[in-house]
């Protein structure tokens, strides 16, 4: 009989090896699915993983897009990982992302069409603040009313979506848009835009912020007392209390930080790639970031890589739809396989298989 035995230390080999094996298994399982759909599996896999990065025809455009797509995912996931490690579950990053974008856009539009150099920094501050305040609702309710932050933060996503719709059709609507929903285009105004910093790289302020957040989180977790408190609270809440960790303060800190980062991601998106507040501005970054956070094992470097991998499957998957006519649903199934194998093989890093003969008790 096979038994799983917990390793005293996670296996160094499998920490690196498991993701590689997972990608290989996904290629095999996905390849079988594509073949069953009557598509050339080798070509499909090549288009998804290879063409966005290296094909002569697409890479020049796709490679920068990888950063554009991964930037908000990484920025939000880093924030979420702080709370997740401490057992504080912010499921509503999507809502904080929306409110951050609304605050930031509203700030920029309030001074329209000024091109003052302080407008954009002000928008960033407003974005951070918007996300922070939206996250404070579940945080304060949890600390002072003992409500469940999972539910409150999640339900506030739908409130934020209603706010977004009312902004797009009402109070932030472009006065020159002849009644159509959607705000003015922030990305086309020098005062409010979040431009590509180095031409042809896709790098905008939000991507830069994501990289900074990765480094900051790495430092916090490995060097700072806060990182220690977060881990302690997550792994041994009682011990944390005895060690003098203020649980309420930690909730406010973790939810506030993740909310602020999600809000900033929303601002960078609305002032850059998206350009404007529209009814369908949010496309699920806040939810996908939860997957990215866990895919990256709540580790900053892992999150960086997981964000890039997710972005690659989005962009490569789109190419596969286009070039081979693979249905969008099959691409989603393929992404699902990848997540499944990555998370399932995690067991190899923390456990080992043992053959054991049954012993009578």
């Amino acid at each position, binding site marked *: 009989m096979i038994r799983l035995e917990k390793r005293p230390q996670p296996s160094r080999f499998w920490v690196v090896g498991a993701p590689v094996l997972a990608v290989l298994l996904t290629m095999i399982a996905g390849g079988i699915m594509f073949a069953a759909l009557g598509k050339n599996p080798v070509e499909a896999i090549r288009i998804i993983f290879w063409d966005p990065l290296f094909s002569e*025809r*697409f890479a020049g455009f*796709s490679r920068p897009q990888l950063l554009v*797509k991964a930037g908000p995912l990484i920025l939000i996931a880093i924030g979420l990982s702080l709370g997740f490690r401490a057992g504080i579950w912010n499921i509503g990053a999507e809502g904080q992302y929306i409110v951050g974008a609304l605050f930031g856009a509203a700030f920029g539009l309030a001074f329209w069409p000024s091109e003052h150099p302080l407008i954009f920094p002000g928008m960033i501050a407003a974005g951070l603040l918007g996300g922070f305040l939206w996250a404070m609702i579940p945080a304060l309710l949890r600390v002072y009313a003992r409500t469940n932050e999972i539910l409150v933060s999640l339900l506030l996503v739908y409130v934020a*979506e209603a706010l977004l719709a009312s902004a797009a059709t009402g109070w932030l609507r472009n006065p020159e848009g002849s*009644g*159509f929903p959607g705000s003015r285009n922030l990305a086309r105004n020098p005062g409010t835009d979040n431009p590509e910093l180095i031409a042809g790289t896709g790098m905008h302020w939000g991507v830069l912020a994501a990289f900074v957040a990765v480094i900051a989180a790495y430092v916090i977790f490995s060097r700072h007392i806060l990182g220690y408190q977060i881990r302690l609270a997550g792994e041994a809440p009682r011990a944390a209390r005895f060690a003098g960790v203020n649980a309420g303060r930690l909730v406010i800190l973790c939810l506030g930080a993740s909310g602020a980062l999600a809000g900033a991601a929303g601002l960078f998106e609305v002032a850059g790639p998206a350009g404007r507040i529209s*009814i369908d501005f949010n496309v699920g970054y806040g939810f996908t970031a939860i997957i990215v956070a866990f895919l990256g094992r709540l580790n900053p470097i892992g999150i960086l890589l997981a964000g890039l991998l997710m972005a690659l499957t989005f962009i490569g998957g789109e190419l596969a739809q286009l070039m081979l006519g693979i249905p969008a649903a099959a691409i989603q199934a393929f992404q699902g396989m990848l997540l499944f194998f990555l998370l399932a093989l995690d067991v190899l890093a923390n456990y080992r298989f043992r053959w054991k003969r049954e012993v009578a008790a």
Partner: protein
Amino acid sequence: MKMLPRLLASAALVAGLALPAAAQDDPFQVGFIYVGSPGDYGWTYEHDQGRLAVEEHFGDAVETVFLENVPEGADAERAITQMILGGADMIFTTSFGFGEATNAVAAQFPDVYFEHATGYMREHPNVSTYNARFYEGRAVLGHIAGHMTESNIIGYIGSYPIPEVIQGINSAFLHAREVNPDVEIRVVWTYTWFDPAVEADAAQALIDAGVDVLMQHTDSTAPQTVAQEAGIISFGQASDMIQFAPRPRVASIIDNWAPYYIRRVGEAMEGTWEQSDIWEGIDTGMVVIGEMTDAIPEDVRASAQAMIDAIAAGEYHPFTGPINRQDGSVWLADGEVADDGTLAGLNFYVEGITGEIPN
């Protein structure tokens, strides 16, 4: 360790060699960007029917590609660009929310033709917009609804409070009222174009409020199912939804894009394509009223058909005065016809509709 670079290099070579051949292939490639899936049996389904009609009409001379479930915003810009890098010569973006992205990409590819549905932005000479006068069809459905309702309450599932939807509500109400002075209209906003669960909830809420005729300006068939269970009548939206005939679906408003798509693709191939802003209705067949079933009394079918014919002949405009705004002020004087500019930005209800347009 030396193997890896060589392996990468040879694979890159293979990839590089394989692709240019495809790029210079002869067929004119037309790409479609869908906001939903052709399986919605509504909005996107009809655009996909248009795509298939283009394929059938031009045969081997044209090749089509499409991307489904493309989010509006930054992702659309990427999707369109990748489509063009993949070889598309002409792009149809089939949702209002793709306007910004369409124009942004059009600036970078002046040789590619762009057609954006239901939008208004034409910032570059290679971008056209096209839309259908859905309100003409809504007038006919409102006429039927006014006759058919017994509770005198008509339900309307609105997607977003945008001019196109408000036109439809006003048009349906005016023509229901015309034949039934006691009729009222209840509107529920879903803030989505396609979400079967939300649409079903909206339908149920309206039925609970006493509605016995249901109209929808959202894309799924979920409201039809709810109407069927409740035993009330409804109208197909965007596509015929004939699978729900003869009841609850007693008629439908169909978006028929195929003739326009064939015409524009043909013009692009011949080099006679020019920028345009198309807004066509029942007269050219862009808006079609689907079969009226036996559930509708014969005389109502006849009067509805008369209205269709009058609109098609240009003798009747659904927004002909006297029409007052909701607040009682005069919008259109007796005999006055609404101009396209006002309609395109319509943001108020007509007199008699209760409730407010959300802001």
